[in-house]
């Protein structure tokens, strides 16, 4: 069984390279100036806020996960571990390059907003690793790309109505669109509240204030497509159509929690950091010999589905 942190997709420097891969002259994200890759330096990118979230997690990535440590190094004090390390002479050797990560729904400029929000919802702090170390943004990106809904297959036939709160979400708007519009609107709201500073570049306290405004329904509408105020419905995508600040918050929180706590096979909960926080040991074949050991912590390892499948099926 491979050590969990040996996995390619969990290797932090590679994910930094992946975030940079769309930065080519052929596919410039809207908010990033078109420039040959070798001319974009780290400072420029940090100013644009594109990598602040990624950088915040670097210190931990070089530690063994599961230790209750906080990031020991900020990007300013350990440039060698920064996401831009090695960018100047980007390693194009296929033996070294990681090609199986990256983002297939959001663009990096949106990921940086998402990352900043997830990192406030489940921060890296004294109680241990958070959304950053869990790779929650990778989970959410994959889910949006799959076009599935939170609860799986959805009835998508019309006619569409507003409906009562007891009838559940009735909107025709596809979930990935709600997520993308919600992120961009959250960023716009941040800029309107804090003199043009985007969400990802705000202080933690300012970011928290934005999130509280959203969850409390203090900010009513997210752009022209907002329809109505929605009640906060934990673990569901809200009770009203469209995307309101409050229903987007609910959606964002639901997916962040899911990315933190779902099996690592889905791209989040890397090295089972979410499970280790609360003490959920994962895919154990049996607890029959421990269930009546009252008031005693469980004995054993944390086991992911992939590790379990290696045991029972010889594939992982």
């Amino acid at each position, binding site marked *: 069984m491979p050590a969990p942190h040996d996995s390619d997709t969990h290797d932090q420097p590679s994910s930094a390279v992946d975030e940079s891969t769309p930065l080519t002259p052929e596919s410039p994200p809207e908010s990033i100036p078109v420039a040959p890759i070798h001319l974009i330096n780290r400072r420029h990118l940090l100013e644009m806020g594109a990598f602040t979230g990624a950088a915040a997690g670097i210190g931990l990535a070089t530690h063994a996960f599961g230790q209750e440590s906080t990031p020991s190094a900020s990007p300013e004090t350990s440039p060698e571990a920064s996401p831009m390390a090695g960018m100047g002479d980007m390693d194009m050797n296929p033996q070294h390059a990681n090609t199986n990560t990256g983002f297939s729904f959001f663009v990096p400029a949106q990921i940086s907003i998402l990352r900043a929000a997830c990192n406030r919802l489940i921060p890296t702090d*004294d109680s241990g690793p958070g959304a950053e170390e869990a790779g929650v943004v990778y989970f959410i990106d994959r889910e949006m790309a799959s076009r599935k809904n939170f609860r799986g297959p959805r009835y998508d036939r019309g006619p569409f109505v507003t409906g009562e709160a007891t*009838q559940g979400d009735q909107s025709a708007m596809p979930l990935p669109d709600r997520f993308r519009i919600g992120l961009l609107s959250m960023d716009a709201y941040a800029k309107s509240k804090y003199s043009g500073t985007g969400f990802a570049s705000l202080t933690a306290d300012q970011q928290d204030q934005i999130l509280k405004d959203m969850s409390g329904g203090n900010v009513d509408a997210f752009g022209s497509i907002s329809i109505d105020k929605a009640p906060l419905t934990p673990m569901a*995508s809200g009770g009203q159509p469209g995307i309101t600040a409050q229903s987007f918050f609910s959606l964002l929180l639901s997916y962040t929690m899911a990315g933190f706590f779902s099996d690592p096979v889905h791209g989040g909960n890397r090295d089972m950091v979410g499970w280790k926080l609360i003490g959920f040991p994962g895919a154990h074949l049996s607890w029959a010999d421990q269930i009546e050991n009252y008031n005693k912590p469980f004995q054993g390892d944390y086991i992911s589905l992939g590790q379990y499948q290696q045991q029972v099926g010889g594939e992982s």
Partner: protein
Amino acid sequence: MATKLPHTDVVFIGFGMVGSIIAAELAKNTKLKMVALERGPYRDTFPDFIQDHFDEWRYAVQSGLFMDLSKNTVTFRNNADQSAAPMREYGSFLPGNGVGGAMVHWNGQLWRFLDYFFEYRSHLEERYGKDYLPKDTTIQDWPMTYAEIEPFYTKFDETFGISGKAGNLNNEIQEGGNPFEGPRSKEYPQAPGKIPYGSSLFADAAKELGYKPFPQPNGNSTGAYTNPYGQKLGPCNYCGFCERFGCHTGAKASPILMTVPYALASGNLEIRQFSTVYRINHQDGKATSVTYFDANGLEVEQPADLIVLGAFTLENNRLMMLSQIGEIYDPKTEKGTVGRNYTYQVGGAGGTVWFEDKIMNRFMGSGSSGMSIDEFNSDNFDHTGLGFFGGGNITCNVIGARPILNNGPLPPKTPTWGSEWKAAAAKWYNRSVSFGMQGESPAYRQNHVDLDPTYKDQFGDPLLRITFDFTDNERKMVQYTNENVFPNIAKQLGGTQSAINGNITSYNIVPYQSTHVQGGTVVGSDPSNSVVNKYCQSWDVENLFVVGASNFPQHGGYNPTGTVGALAYWAADAIISKYLPKPGSIA
């Protein structure tokens, strides 16, 4: 134009618990050729569940084993003044999909209804007078007594290797069992299993309060078990992944283990997966065939002599309506019977205690390894002056705290995100004990199902429309226990802090509550108050048997599976001993 296939003797519509029990009995007692039409896939313990069932995101959150809502759903409104809107996502309840039905993903909580519950209206009117019941309740006596159906409850228990401790054996009260239950003719096939820490603390507290706690009857095998068909269960591993998951170890009582393989081994049964029946064709009171969409969406007609409609409650009702069998119930005129007496389960009553100094290991458990008390179920307590009737079983069950949906509950006023939430989740996730009441859902004139006038399924047929709400009776029932029962239990449990649940208002289809949806094709003594007769035979089409929780005239304070199983064996016996020797109306 549908492709017409050669005739067969028996067709099963839906192949979950009901169809597979009747198929197993027909395989055992007859040479009839049978075809089972199941809209979902045939998944089995190996290799499907053993190799991937530990995936909460796929199965519990993303609805891996449930009816595919992109193809078929229901519409819902609280009352006739609202417009029904489709249930676009799960959800209040989780119907199964595939061979074995909802018993593939169930928790294994296996109960019988109380003996007097089969004569519920008579019992309540006798004890409290005719004026005590709310005017709009349409609860009614069942057409059979508990004593009549008891042998079939026992047969079901033996088929599925149910474990527990009898509380009443042939009218003798037994220490350690449920003293309120109706008399059993036999002890449970298997002894109770292991009890999680939280449930044992609850049982201690209940005992101190003078109640009589007993092990919750369990459909997750407590040992190695072989049923009368020669089918086997292995012992439960208490892995904590029962409800919403298939069982990885062949321990969960499920048709895919206990009835389907036996029926298939007869050589007389063919199962067609991905086959969605949309009409029962009939003429002059006799069904001639069913038509269905096959896996490619093409129409196929299957002629048969005998048809067993044993799908989930929702589809049993819809197919009767789409096939124009009987008259759809209209609450305004009270004419018609199909769709009448639709009921649910009333949750909401209960509480949680958190212990600073105790580790609960809440991720260990089976779906039904709890401890229960029955002092507050149905009419087990005196309702004089309380202003409501009914109640429910109260259980503390540690079913496995999977982390996405069950990283709580956390103490009141804990934020839902940020460092404070995170610290609280880390501290309390494994230190809580929750308990609650499975409340009774009586039948009312205004609660019913019919066909939606607007919304359609993937093939263009109308969806089923649910019109349902709780009434003051159930609100008072929940409030009574939240004020008079659960605070005492919480206090007795001790702990660092506790919380009692909020009371209920209107039924809301958004949060998960219970997959116990019942009624609409009710059993009864007379065609004026029922869709099927005492033996689950259609009053209108004599070679059609409709069996399921859709037969319940009203719902009791327990999970329905045991009673559905008893009805399936009851109907199978009637088909074999009464109908087949002399086809025609048997009641």
